[in-house]
């Protein structure tokens, strides 16, 4: 059967909208391939010289390393905190717990600029300015609510009878958590960890407020690169940033599919 006019129009509109959303993110790819010395679209000729500059530059490479260390550590911290918090709230399951949950999700709602000012005010007296510890802490705070959301979603599908069964069979609260609850909510924990990683990996607003000289994450160096000159190396860095984010996202998609395949909901 041939699709009617309105169906075809809907499809066309959907594609236009999709392009509108996705294409700007991809514009860095052709720009990074320009053979010229300034930010421009390549015309007929392509070159990898900016990638060469990028990977040959100690400054850019150190930024990669810094971003990676901070994002991995912040994601780890956010995952531990967010998971414990989600399990705690799930076990209490009262109106007070719901209020606390809403409070804990605030970092998602509060404009980043407000968070940034708050961290600045707090970190100066604490001596955490421009340090790994401060960056990891701040990014963990931003990522933890995401973990709370994904783990809570997993727990909503967790049968509380499994916990009772574990205790009935003689397992302590800790053993029950390690051997029964955590394996059952693993997809939610992993998803939260990946989201927390991405949050830190491309975070710029808070970073600008709480760093000075020694911490130069990838987004911060790109920000400077765009502001101070129009070096296409920035575009090459953007492509790498995007690629890492996409890979992490892809891992998440694959994990979701595997979790569904392994754990078909019985009845």
């Amino acid at each position: 059967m041939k699709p009617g006019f309105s169906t075809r129009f809907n499809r066309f509109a959907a594609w236009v909208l999709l392009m509108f959303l996705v294409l700007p993110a991809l514009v860095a790819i052709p720009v990074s391939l320009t053979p010229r010395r300034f930010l421009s679209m390549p015309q007929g000729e392509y070159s990898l010289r900016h990638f060469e500059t990028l990977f040959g530059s100690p400054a850019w490479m150190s930024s990669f390393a810094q971003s990676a260390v901070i994002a991995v550590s912040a994601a780890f911290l956010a995952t531990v905190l967010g998971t414990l918090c989600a399990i705690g709230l799930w076990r209490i399951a009262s109106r007070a717990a719901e209020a606390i949950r809403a409070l804990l999700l605030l970092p998602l709602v509060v404009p980043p600029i407000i968070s940034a000012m708050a961290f600045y005010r707090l970190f100066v007296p604490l001596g955490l300015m421009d340090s790994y510890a401060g960056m990891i802490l701040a990014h963990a705070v931003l990522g933890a609510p995401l973990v709370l959301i994904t783990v809570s979603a997993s727990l909503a599908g967790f049968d509380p009878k499994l916990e009772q069964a574990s205790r009935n069979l003689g397992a302590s609260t800790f053993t029950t958590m390690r051997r029964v609850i955590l394996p059952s909510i693993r997809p939610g924990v992993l998803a939260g960890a990946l989201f927390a990683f991405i949050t830190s990996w491309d975070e710029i607003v808070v970073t600008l407020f709480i760093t000075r000289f020694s911490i130069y994450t990838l987004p911060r160096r790109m920000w400077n690169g765009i502001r101070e000159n129009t070096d296409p190396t920035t575009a090459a860095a953007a492509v790498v940033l995007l690629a890492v984010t996409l890979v992490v996202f892809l891992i998440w998609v694959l994990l979701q599919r595997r979790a569904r395949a392994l754990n078909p909901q019985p009845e």
Partner: protein
Amino acid sequence: MSADSAQSGGLAITGLVKRYGTVEAVAGIDLEIQRGEFLTLLGPSGSGKTTLLMMIAGFQDATAGDILLDGRSIVATPAEKRNFGMVFQGYALFPHMSVRDNIGYALSVRKRPRREIAGRVEEMIDLVQLQGMEDRLPAQLSGGQQQRVALARALAFAPPVLLLDEPLGALDRKLRIEVQAQLKDLHERVGTTFIYVTHDQEEALSMSDRVVIMQSGRIEQVGTPQELYSRPRTRFAATFLGKSNFLHRDGRVWALRPEKIDLHVGSSGDDRTTGKILSQTYFGSVLNYRVETTEFGVLEVDVDAWRGGAALRPGTVVSIGWHDEAVVPLED
């Protein structure tokens, strides 16, 4: 294994109460359970039978009263220290663990040696006849197989008491009857005290040593299935376990089971009354008649279908009789 588990398992429940706000889910229960007994808590939903079981398991705190295991109070003991096996409604098998790991879980959290766990798991697999299924996940098993894994898991650490919360609810009718026989057989082999919760009167009658009929958080009547069926004490007990007619005579109410009524066309010496058939329903093994009698109102009468020959048509006039011991006086 009958040796280690039969050592203990006698329970005494005294004055047990569970209150939620102003609602009493369990309203004062006194009950002695012998070691090795198969005891069924039977009642409609909301009768408090599941709450009572959860209190014995340790998942619900008692508002008042005491539970004694072999003479020692256990109300302050947390669930994980009570050592009671339990088969949950829906089984609650650990979905990420194989059949082997599910069954071995209780021993593994008790830090038993690997070799001992493996041996015990094998024993339990044999007991519930799941050979060849050791490495499957629960999602790869049928409902009946899952139910047997749940049983094996709960019995693996030789608990003195096994609690069963409507374990057959998820099975279809034919399988349920099969599993009833298996459960009863298993009970005889392991010698553990079984406390079984159900709302199904057939399960209660076919498996139990004793049945506790519960209503509104209280015990309505306790007895062997035969006692409860032949001598119900209250109207509720008479209708919840089987069907019954109620006769009003000498200012009392009497229960009369439909199958204990004799029905025939024409009259004989010991007829009690006559009546007219209102309707008849065929159930395979029995024919059920509703008869409008002259003295006792409408009575239900069950006749063995194979005996009756052709069904009597509505409107047929019949004579009705019964033996003296067929009518049982009720308290309410």
